[in-house]
Every structure is written in C-alpha cells, then in structure tokens.
C-alpha cells in the first residue's frame, strides 16, 4: 500500500528529478505558492476536514481494493499537502512520487466535488501540483513530448503544416467517391461553422474527418476548416501544467477562428479540448468566456437531428449504454442532449451504468493520463476496473462514447476486462445511418 510500492519508471520523471535538489525544489515550489496561488489553495488546504467523504468518489480507490492512498484527499495530502507542511522542502524522490500521483493517478474528473460538503475542488489541487512539477521540469515523457509538439507545431501530434491541408484534401478526394460534390472548404471567410479537430484525427483517425465532412455536407452547413495552424483545439499543456503554452494554444485557436470571421466553432467528439476552451485556456488569455462560441459535437448533432438537417434511413440496433465524458457532462451539462441524440439514433433502450450523468465514473484515460503513455498504461487500465464492472452490468454490447480519450481508455478497458463491447462515436452512427443527399 502506498505510492512507494507502486512507483512506475518513466524517463521524463526520472531525468527530471535527477536535475533537482532540495534547495532548488523549495525555491520553485514556494515561487509557485507565493506567485501563483492564493486564497483558493489556502482555504482548501485549511478547511479540508479529513473526513474521508470523498474517498468513495474516486475510481482509482474503487478499482484498487479500497487502497486509502488513492482517495482524493489522500492524493492531496501526499502532494500539495506535504509540500505545504514542509515549506516546500522535499527530496527529489518525493517529487517523483508526487508527480506520478498528480499526472497518472488523478484524471481531474471532479467526481469528488459531488462528495465534498465544503466544496473543495481536488482537481485544482492536482493541477496545481502539476504546475509545480512542470516548473520543476518533472513531467512524464510522453505527455511532455505532446506539449513539445504543441509548442513547435500548434498541434499535439507533430503534424506539419502541409500534412494538415494535404490530409484534408485527401479526405475530400476520398469522400467524393461517395459524395461527388463534397468539399472541405479551406479558409472560407465568413462561414457559419469552423470545424475543429484534435491532431490524432489527421494523424491516425482520418475517417473521423471523412465522417464529419460527410455529415456537414449532407446537412448543407456553411462550414470551413482553417488551412493554417490553430486548427487543433486540443491542449495537453493544460494538463502538463504549462499554462503559458496553454494560453498560446488557445490564442492561436481562437484567433484562427476570429480571422476567418466565422459565427462559431464546432468541435469533434473530444472532451479535454472542450474543457480547455470553455473553462481553462480562455481564462489564461483573459477571456471570461470563450471569444468565439464553441459547440461540442454532441450539441451540434442534437441540432442537426432535431432540426431535421440530418435524416436517418436506419437506426443503430440497441440496446446501448453510454459513457458520459466528464468534460462535457460533469463539465458542461450535455448529459440530456447526449441522451436525446442517442434516443434518436438507436433502436432500443439506453441501459444506464450505475453511475451516470454528472455522477459518472471517469474512463480513467482523461486529464492527460492516457497521454502519459505506455509506462502508465497498465496502472491506468487497472483504475478502470470499477467502470468495467459497471459496464459489464449493463449487459449490452455497445458503448457510445463521444470523446476521444474515453474511446482510447474504454478500448483498453473492454480488452483487458474482456467485456466484448463495441465502442462508438456518435459520428460513426450518424454516418452509418444517415440519409445520403441525392446525387
């Protein structure tokens, strides 16, 4: 029991702490405490009653035989709590443990908010710990590489400028076999919709761009995609604690949309990017709300389906269950619309998991955890056991998950726990079932 017995070897963390000593740690930690945190951290640290009510909230705890060191308040105690108690003076090895907890044992899902009577936001404490780790240069290798990609290319997958437009043109060409007059309009000024994606789409999941283009084309939406960097709405810097880069990314993204004079940004089925635009990145830039409305696919599909812009020729065979992505449901209240969309698309019942809507259990992949890569994969999937149990209990064969990270996380989970379930994006189903325009 305890973080010491479960330490995972990671190059980024190991090399990071090798550059530190107690003096340098103390200096950096206190610079963050004094320069960047205030009443919020102070109040949270002071009034946490150590009551343990939040314990049951956390899927890491539930999935690890109720190991108390995984409880939300316990994670705070082992990280920020320890730093505060020691005036920021801890050993490099302690920083290693703290980094592992903050980056890989908390999805920042905020389920524990629903358990805390005094309203402590444990995710804030964990992100503050990550901020300190970033400032100390102690971040897991894979997610740090993603942050590097963001800073070098403004997307998270090292997609080069030409690869982006080339991929869009390739998908456009492919789609013309099916939709002869389909366009992916690039840099079309004044369009109603700016469609934005995350970099894994052009890199690995080009069919998602194809599907989105097919849906937007069929619905006769006046839309565009930007030809220049800014197209990637994702934001791993938000999760590494590199807030300066996070702000730079959000500026690039929103200014890309402002430059094209679009009415709104519609984004693909992604959770964390949504959090970044409505809740986090916009704030660093100084915008109280996003400067250009960002509509998540769930809401956009809801519009298309309820306004009759997309009609169905068939329905997807149910029953199905669904994954409420934390960042769009607990984070943005899209639970009802998600269910409306599924009811329209699916022939059969929605079998809810025991914990659902804003009380949903996280897929264990969010908050940058899946982006910490292979070293942390087993631990991540183990933490999804509680979720796997709930999914198995639904007895259905399909999970609808409108979020890339949920997909990735649940994919591993379904495999490991032999659930035998298919995981679908809403876009997959709409593309499959929609009425094609007459040629």
């Amino acid at each position, binding site marked *: 029991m305890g973080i010491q017995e479960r330490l995972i070897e990671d190059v980024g963390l190991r090399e990071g702490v090798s550059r530190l000593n107690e003096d340098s740690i103390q200096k950096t930690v206190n610079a963050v405490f004094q320069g960047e945190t205030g009443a919020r951290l102070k109040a949270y640290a002071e009034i946490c009653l150590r009551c343990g009510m939040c314990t049951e909230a956390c899927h890491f705890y539930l999935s690890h035989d109720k190991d108390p060191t995984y409880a939300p308040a316990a994670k705070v105690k082992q990280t920020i709590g320890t730093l505060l108690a020691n005036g920021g003076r801890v050993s490099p090895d302690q920083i290693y443990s703290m980094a592992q907890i903050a980056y890989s044992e908390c999805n920042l899902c905020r389920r524990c908010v629903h358990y805390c009577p005094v309203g402590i936001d444990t995710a804030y404490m964990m992100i503050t710990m990550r901020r300190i780790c970033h400032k100390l240069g102690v971040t897991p290798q894979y997610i740090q590489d993603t942050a590097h990609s963001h800073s070098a290319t403004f997307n998270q997958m090292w997609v080069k400028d030409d690869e982006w437009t080339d991929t869009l043109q390739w998908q456009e060409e492919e789609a013309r076999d099916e939709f002869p007059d389909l366009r992916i309009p690039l840099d079309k000024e004044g369009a109603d919709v700016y469609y934005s994606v995350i970099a894994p789409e052009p890199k690995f999941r080009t069919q998602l761009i194809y599907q989105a283009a097919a849906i937007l084309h069929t619905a006769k939406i006046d839309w565009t995609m930007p030809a220049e960097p800014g197209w990637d709405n994702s934001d791993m810097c938000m999760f590494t604690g590199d807030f300066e880069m996070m*702000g730079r990314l959000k500026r690039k993204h929103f200014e890309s949309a402002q430059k094209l004079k679009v009415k709104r940004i519609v984004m693909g089925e992604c959770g964390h990017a949504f959090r970044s635009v409505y809740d986090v990145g916009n704030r660093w830039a100084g915008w109280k709300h996003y400067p250009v409305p960002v509509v998540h696919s769930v809401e956009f599909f809801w519009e298309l389906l309820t306004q009759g812009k997309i009609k169905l020729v068939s329905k997807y065979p149910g029953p199905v269950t669904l994954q409420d992505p934390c960042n769009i449901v607990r984070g943005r209240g899209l639970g009802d619309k998600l269910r409306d969309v599924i009811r329209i698309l699916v022939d059969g019942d929605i079998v809810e998991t025991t914990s659902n809507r804003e009380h949903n259990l996280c897929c264990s992949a969010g908050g940058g955890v899946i982006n910490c890569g292979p070293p942390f994969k087993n631990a991540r999937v183990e933490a999804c056991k509680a979720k796997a149990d709930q999914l198995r209990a639904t007895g259905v064969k399909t999970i609808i998950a409108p979020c890339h990270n949920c997909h990735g996380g649940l994919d591993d989970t379904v495999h490991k726990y032999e659930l035998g379930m298919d995981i679908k994006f809403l876009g997959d189903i709409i593309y499959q079932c929609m009425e094609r325009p007459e040629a």
Partner: protein
Amino acid sequence: MQDAASSWDWQPGERVILDSVTCGKTHQWQEEPYVASDGERLAAIVRLEDETFSMCVNGKTWESSFEKLWKPCFSPDGRLVVIAQQDGEWSLAVDGATWEEFYAYLWHPCFSADGSVIAAAIQNDGQYGMSVDGTTWSNLFDNANEYAISDNGQSTAAVVQTEAMAAADLAAFRRGVYTVAVNGEAWKNTFMNAWTPTFDAHGRKVATQVRLNLYEYSIAVDDAVWGQTYNCVWEPRFNPGTGEVVAPVRIAGAWGMAQDGKTIWDPVFFQCWHQQFSTDGKVLAAIVAPTFGEFTVAVNAKPWSTTFPVVTELTLSTDGKRAAALACNNNVDWQVVVDGTPWRGKYDMAWKPVFSADGTHVAAKVEKAGRHAVLMDGKAYKRDFEHAWDPVFSPDGSKVLIRAVDKGTFVRIVATLSDFSSRG
C-alpha cells in the same frame, strides 16, 4: 497600394461589373468569390465537367485547368494567385500561368506590400522552406513554420527545425532544435521554440519570439537574444521610426510592453497583444485587458475608458492620432469602436476598420441578418448587399469604393461621403 489606387476609376456612381456572378462555362460547382482591390474583377474556383479545376474571372475561365486549386486571392498589385496542383505536384498559378517550379506541396502564399513579390511555403522530399517567385531557398529544413516576407519583398523568413528529432526525444527538444532562417540561411543560435519572425521596415532585420527553456521567454533580434527573460512574450514589432523592437512581455503574471529588453509599459495588464506603431513610430497602441475579462485598446500605455469582453482588429491611422478596433461579446453584438467610443449599431459580425489616408474617416464592413453593409464614420451606405468586401478609401479620402454582390450581380460603387446616411 494607395499609389496604385490613384489610377483606379473614382468616378462617383455605381457600375455593374458582372450581370451574373455565375461562371459562363458549364461547371459542376463554383466556389466562393474573391474580388480584386480595384473592384474590376471577381474570381472564383470552378470545378469543370471534366473534373478539373479552373479559375473563372469575370465570367470567363482561365485557359488552363488543374487537378486541384485552392486558396485563391488577388495580390496587392491585382494579380490573381491560386495554389495549383498538376500531375500530383504543386505550384502557384499567377494569372493562369504556374511558376516553372513545382513542389511536393506548396501553401501559405504571401506578398510584399506592393504585391510585386510573391512567396510561399514549400515542401520537397520532406524538406521545408520557402519559394520566392518560384525560386526555392538554397537550404531546406526538416520542418518550417511561421513564414514571413518583408514589406519590400527583399527577404523571407521562417522558423525552421535544424536537426531531425527521434520520437519523444525530450533531450533534443530541451537542447533546442529551432531557429529562424532568413532567405534560407539559419541563425547560429537554436532555441527551444521560436515564433512570429517579423521584419523591420527595410526588410533587413528580423525579430522573433523565442523560448529559451520551458519557462523563460524572450525576444531575439538578428540572432541576438535580449538580455532580459520573461514569463511569456508575444509577437515583436519594429518601430518604423527608430528600428527599436517592442514586444508584450509577462512579468510576475501581468503583461506590459518591453522595448529592446527594457520595460516601457508597466506590467499592469491581464493581457496585452497585437501592438502596432503609427508610421512615424511615435504612437504605439495595443489591445489590452486592464482587468480579467475586460478588453480595450491602450494608446501609448493609456487604456481607453470603455472595455468590452473581446476586442480585435486594432487599426491605427497613418499618423497614429486615431485608433479603431472591433468589440464583441461572445462573437455577437459586434461594434466598431473608434478612439474609445463605439458606434451606435451592433452587428452579427464586423470586419477590420479602414482609415482614410489622412485619418479623418473610418469605414468598416458589417453584417446583420445575413446582409452586408458598409459603414463610414458610424453611418451606413444607403443600401446593403448579399455580400460586400472591405471598403477602400480613395487616396484623397473623399470617396469610398464599395465592392459588392447583390441579387447575383457584381457591382462596383464609388460612394461619396454624402451617400452614407445615419440609418445605422
């Protein structure tokens, strides 16, 4: 461009340039229209029956057609430029003729101020750089981004990657593999990151944002980094009068402005960006947020008293005596704000305000309920349009050229100041 504009037709009145904006040649589809600055031509990409693409200009297609065309635009000197693909390779087609050189990929066409020089980003065999009027940089790089061309067209620059990196190679990144290449020649110093290289007025010097390590940002000018580092920086700009470089800098969590490494605007802003100089360099204005969530414009460090949730498209008059910008809330309720006072109307969208050469008048295009209108000094032109382009002032500032499409017709209107009523 103002020089070129003096030769345009400034006879007041409306001239129908095209009865129909639909391309005369049979086609599968026609894409968005683009118009020349002088308002004499309207162009659009058309997909022809044989599944090739061409440009249709004033109803007539180019003689040449291509496998693919994208990103058409008129250069400042009125040439029609479009990215074109032939036999799987890419070039730039200028008024129907491509550059001789073709590339594995080509994008980001950009122009000198007068339009006489055209450059673009290119990639060949996985190597990146720029091509200027079809002449490729002598050195290409593993990657390049953030392309720039000087106003006089004499120089081009980009951020380049100086060595290949293995996957997830944190050490190489930390060491720094990025720098700026000017005309294909990379600087000697490398950085963790570099962004937004920008030229001085003569196209001789280049300033750029640099990230020295994960936490320290600064500005580099011609390969020399300022002595001072910051939490963060934004795009540098050269003072056209003195050649000094200014950039927004973040100090202890707040934004100010630094010049050659010395703070000239105290760091008191929640945000500060998009700074620009008057032509003589005596006035420096920027978009700032005096407090969280409230944006405005600061002129020589002094913010306007009115604030808005979002401010964009700052424009200074040539003499720097006046400033205009756009404000909105959540991308609606757009307002044109001139010298700190918003014009009366609120719109669904607005475009960058344009000053007359002497700075006495401001015009802007706006959109309401799907119709475009042109405003001048807060008053609307007497009719609105299906689509309009940014207004252009005559060199003497007494007339406004309106380029617009309505009811399928492309019109060119030279409006006098009295043609703008106070209808809003």
